């Protein structure tokens, strides 16, 4: 067959480029097709903005090395973690040359079985991940009970104390200098034994940040709001990044529709459905959270493909919609978080002036 040359039409920058599905995808197996749709990283505006902000903060932390990222469930927090880690790793050649930092470390604040947050497990995970990232790390740092076996796996003695584990983690971290440590599901840290304060847990993080000299990024749902302003020391050392959902107004609504447009382009079905026309329906189903929308569509896609259908209809979507009870729960959480956030900033001005003993703001004060 003669090879035809492809002619590109001049594209209008204001219209988003039409996505082309990989060749042969429509003929691929159901699993491959859903896999394709599910694993695409959809870079929507809020996510990209948050990523840029976060990367900026990580590379130029100034005096504030604790970054707190919060948003509703399904707003793309884990995706954000992955994106930021990816971005930092990609640009690392530059970073490394100028600063000597190495790849970021992504950790999970594991929910613990016991009454309070398991720092021991956290430190172990930290040490193991760090050693995996840097196989050539010198583990002989004078902490007993942490050693490497002949085949390179890290063995940590059960009886090593928290204190020693912390020491090992900080020393190893200082050795390789990861550009940032991202902690997903950070609200688990505020899980407490009786008689302790959340503020104390934040002090531990503060100590870790001071000792390691690394930027810590804490990521979590609006539960984070209970731990972001625990004490002044934390406040001075931290920054907030809000990863919000899309609201149904103005530019955000347009952005939401344009996400739908992108998503429908990526759907590997024979006949493309018009998701944009169902925008209101879909919005209600996902509450403006892209992280709820994508799994919903991909579940629907699996069923549709298995049934051998040509396209996705509203009926198919309805079958996989989140139950009303769950949606209501999420909506409540979102509402609560957003209200709390608004209140925090709102009441500040007058109270701050009162506490600091400043007379009513004069002309020199901005805004």
């Amino acid at each position, binding site marked *: 067959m003669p090879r035809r040359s492809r002619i590109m039409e001049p594209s209008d920058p204001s219209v988003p480029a039409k996505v082309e599905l990989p060749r042969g995808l429509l003929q691929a197996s159901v699993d491959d097709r859903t896999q394709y749709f599910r694993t695409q990283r959809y870079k929507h505006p809020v996510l990209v903005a948050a990523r840029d902000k976060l990367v900026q903060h990580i590379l*130029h932390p*100034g*005096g*504030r090395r604790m970054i707190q990222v919060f948003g509703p469930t399904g707003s793309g927090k884990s995706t954000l973690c992955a994106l930021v880690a990816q971005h930092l790793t990609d640009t690392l050649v530059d970073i490394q040359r100028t600063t000597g930092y190495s790849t970021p470390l992504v950790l999970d604040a594991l929910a613990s079985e016991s009454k*309070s947050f398991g*720092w021991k497990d956290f430190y172990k995970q930290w040490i193991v991940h760090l050693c995996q990232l840097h196989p050539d790390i010198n583990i002989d740092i*004078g902490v*007993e009970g942490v050693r490497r076996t002949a085949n390179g796996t890290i063995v940590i003695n059960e*009886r090593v*104390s*928290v*204190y*020693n584990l*912390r020491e090992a983690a900080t020393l190893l971290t200082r050795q390789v200098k990861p550009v940032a440590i991202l902690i997903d599901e950070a609200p688990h840290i505020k899980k407490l*034994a009786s*008689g*302790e304060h959340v503020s*104390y847990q934040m*002090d*531990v993080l*503060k*100590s*870790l940040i*001071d*000792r390691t000299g690394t930027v810590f990024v804490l990521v979590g749902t609006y539960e984070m709001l209970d731990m972001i*302003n*625990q*004490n*002044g*020391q*934390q*406040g*001075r050392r*931290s*920054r*907030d990044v809000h990863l919000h959902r899309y609201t149904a107004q103005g530019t955000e609504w347009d952005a939401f529709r344009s996400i739908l447009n992108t998503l429908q382009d990526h759907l590997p079905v024979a006949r493309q459905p018009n998701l944009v026309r169902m925008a209101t329906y879909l919005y209600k189903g996902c509450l403006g959270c892209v992280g709820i929308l994508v799994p919903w569509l991909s579940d629907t896609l699996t069923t549709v493909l298995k049934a051998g259908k040509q396209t996705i209809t509203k009926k198919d979507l309805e079958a996989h919609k989140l139950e009303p009870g769950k949606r209501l729960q999420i909506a409540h959480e979102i509402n609560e978080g957003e209200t709390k956030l608004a209140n*925090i*900033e709102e009441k*500040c*001005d007058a*109270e*701050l*002036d009162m*506490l*600091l*003993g*400043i007379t009513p*703001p*004069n002309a*020199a*004060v*901005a805004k």
Partner: protein
Amino acid sequence: MTCLTNLLGLHDAQDGGSSMAINKGAIMYPESGATDKDSFVKLIVGHTKLMTLRTALRDALVAEQRPLILGVVGPTGVGKSLLLRLLEQDLTDHWLAEMHRDPSLIPVASICVPAPEFGSFPWESYYHLVLEAHQEPLIQAKVLDAEREHLLASPGESRKATRALRGALENCLRCRRTQAVLIDEGQHLSRATGKVTLADQAGHIVDLARATQTTHVLFGNHELVAMLRLVQDRGHNVQIHHFAPYHWADEQERGDFERVVYTLQQAMPFAMQPDLMSLLPYLYRGCCGCPGILKTWLIDAVMQAIHAGLPTLRQEDLEACAIEKSKLLKIAEEIALEAQILHAAAAPSLPQPPAAVKKRRVAERRPGRDKVGM
């Protein structure tokens, strides 16, 4: 240089003449108009409260009758850690001649205690840190005794090891004739939950200080006060100093704050000096009167402006780097709380904070300050 110093009034000229550390470059002023960003970052402003406390603490620590415990209480970002560093320098300078005579002498050790993960503060981590701090300066020159080395490798393994570690610590402080241990984040020592009470923690530190004849200088926030008071109530020699931020309402302190801003403004690495003086209330509010917070904020903003290639600092840059209002509110609350706590337990008739810092008048001489036979 002296002229500039006088002009700024950050400390009086005589003080600068007598204290070695000041001449040694603890405080740097821009040599000329052109300063690069590094020297701005490293700039230390010797503001009034910092310098007053520095002298007061130094005097207390080199006196015949040293207090057992010295507490420096101040909010975050007021300059406690900086004060600790300066004080360490001063004390080393003071005992320098003696250190030359007796190489085993380590007059001062400084540590920063980490927050405990759960429960009460574990003392073995404190022992470990102090021992570490002692070995650092001479680690190559000294043969470690095998037993202690073994202990260092495994702190907190068992109660026996902890007790042995404490023995090692006491021995070390005694043999090194350590005069003062400077402890940053001292409020972490006062953490007590469960069976351990605050009185236990307070008792422990007093025991240590008494057994070793070493003054423990605790730097910390308001959480520290309760423990200090407890020690004081038992009749031990405790001095509590309040390192308060600058108060806007107090005209003199406002002037001091203004001079800090002015010094920083002059040191900024820009072709065109920004006009920060017109933004004073805004700057004050953005740092709650704490020079440390102000400094970090300005560094952030300056770096951003340099990054963007701007000829001077704009208010937008300051705005972008400012600490969120909610966090400032928390800091302001803690400042108020701290003042309240410190006022409350002092004699209620005193209008001034109970800080032991005596304010001298400018140019008034302090007896016993001059060095003889240099």
